[in-house]
């Protein structure tokens, strides 16, 4: 089933604005020297972060990098061990009562009362939330269920839902109060492609209407596609941060090829390139890391042409987020 254009935008909001009507150049989330420890283990080791109102920010990282601890600290679930955190102008842990009505939180793992139906769960949640009264609770529930394709499950007990359906219900609860700031901790893990599309339709609709979105995900293509800015965490620290072009701009592109073993590949060094060589019995595999792909590719091709050298398995690839991620995961920060 495809989503019609009319339902692509988040249905509860009308018109573009930023969090609480705040100007887009104000800061929604900031952290300075944030540290979080579990006993003697320090999960977050001094991070600085700044997210503007209306921004879509992706926090990436390997398992155990400290993403969820950072998110839960920003959400106010746990106090920072040290450092300063500000969310919508307050301390998320201390000022929870005043901040929470403006937050939507989709935890990486949170459950339901299994014996309640989907509709009862939504109704309970709305009764606990300071949801705007632009629509009745029944309308809000009906629209949300329809948007996330859960209408047929309205009277089904939550324990009978599939993992993907539970995740969609999760999202519905996180967004039902029309939040100014939405935290999404791996929202699409375990979802089929259509459900992922629906999820992103809803989140993008909210973001377009001014909601600040902070996302963690293991799907790099989601961050590439939706995030205005991103950061990659490793070992409790932020290793890379910036817009996608900024992050990729610091990552070298790669030109690779193979030549016969008799070819003097050391000549490439004299052309201003910094190639890596991997000799095999009959050939040499060459990788050139390049910060100017077009120029360096031209240099390599001119060298090969001028010396009548055949380049086998020639490839030139732009820097990718996956490559940046791999490098960061190996502990080599940009």
């Amino acid at each position: 089933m495809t989503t019609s254009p009319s339902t692509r935008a988040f249905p509860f909001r009308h018109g573009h604005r930023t969090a609480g009507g705040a100007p887009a150049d104000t800061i929604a989330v900031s952290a300075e020297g944030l540290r979080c420890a579990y006993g003697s283990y320090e999960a977050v080791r001094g991070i600085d972060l700044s997210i503007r109102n209306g921004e879509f920010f992706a926090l990436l990282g390997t398992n155990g990098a400290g993403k969820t601890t950072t998110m839960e600290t920003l959400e106010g679930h746990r106090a920072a061990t040290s450092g300063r955190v500000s969310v919508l102008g307050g301390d998320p842990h201390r000022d929870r009562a005043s901040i929470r009505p403006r937050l939507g939180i989709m935890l990486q793992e949170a459950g339901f009362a299994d014996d309640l139906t989907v509709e009862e769960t939504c109704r309970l949640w709305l009764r606990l939330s300071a949801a705007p009264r632009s629509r009745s609770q029944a309308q809000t529930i009906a629209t949300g269920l329809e948007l996330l394709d859960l209408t047929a499950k309205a009277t089904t007990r939550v324990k009978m839902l599939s993992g993907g359906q539970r995740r969609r219900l999760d999202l519905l609860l996180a967004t039902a109060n029309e939040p100014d700031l939405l935290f999404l901790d791996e929202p699409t893990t375990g979802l089929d492609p259509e459900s992922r599309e629906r999820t992103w339709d809803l989140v993008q609709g909210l973001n377009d209407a001014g909601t600040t979105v902070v996302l963690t995900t293991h799907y790099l293509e989601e961050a590439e596609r939706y995030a205005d800015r991103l950061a990659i965490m490793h070992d409790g620290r932020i290793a890379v941060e910036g817009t996608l072009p900024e992050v990729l701009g610091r990552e070298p592109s790669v030109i690779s090829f193979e030549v016969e073993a008799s070819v003097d590949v050391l000549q490439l060094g004299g052309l201003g390139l910094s190639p890596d060589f991997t000799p095999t019995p009959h050939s040499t595999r060459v990788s050139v890391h390049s910060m100017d792909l077009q120029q360096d590719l031209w240099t390599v091709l001119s060298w090969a042409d001028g010396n009548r050298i055949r380049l086998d398995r020639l490839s030139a690839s732009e820097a990718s987020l996956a490559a940046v991620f791999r490098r960061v995961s190996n502990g080599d920060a940009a």
Partner: protein
Amino acid sequence: MSTLAPIPAATPHSPSAASRVTSIALMELRIIFRNKTVLLGAVLMPIAMAVYFFYFGAEQMVSPASTAVMAGLTLMAVALLGVYLTATTTMATRREELFLKRLRSGESSDAVIWLGMLVPIVTLVAGQLAVIAVGFGMAGMDAPARPLVVLGAVLGFLALCATVGMFTSIYTPSAAAAQITTLPFFAVVFASFFWTAFDDGFETLSRLTPGGALQNLLMAGWGAIPLDVSTAGAAAALLAWIVVPYLVASRRFRWEKR
């Protein structure tokens, strides 16, 4: 230059704390009545226990003291099973389901969530006790000489069972484990209740225990002992047994499974 966005005034349509407690409590009641096992534990078992005590103890209720003892035993059995065990099990189950974490990701305060979980359990048992009291009265049990003291003791003991249940749930990893983790407190309450019957020179100390404080108040309520400083001490002890577990539990409470 970017600036921090200020927190705006409170959202005008924010539900009150009482409204949130009611919503959570109604949800919990709905779940109790849907789950036959929980329903059996929370409703039928305590009543069965009360009938058992009454059947075997009715002929012994010949004096205010023996009536107070019988009332105390019934109250303990019903409250420990209906409130203490159910509160521990419910908290452990909701934690295991990660539903507590879910509730905490919303706008409700910690106290609202705890109250919402505990109020229906306490209310249910209070209703059962009212029915049992009427039944005991119809069977010829003497009414207490100081009903307000008895009422205070009953409500206090129910609150005690609720807060100690909340405390015990911290060390209870699952609903099944509650059968084990609640045993020590069951033993402490019953042992301390009977301890008060002995003139062993430790009467003052025995009144500080949960069972001892309860028994002392019930004795005073039925006129078996005078209402004096020792009764006030028992009331203070009962209050401490409510407040201290709550304070400890509120600081060390686990919102998610280990």
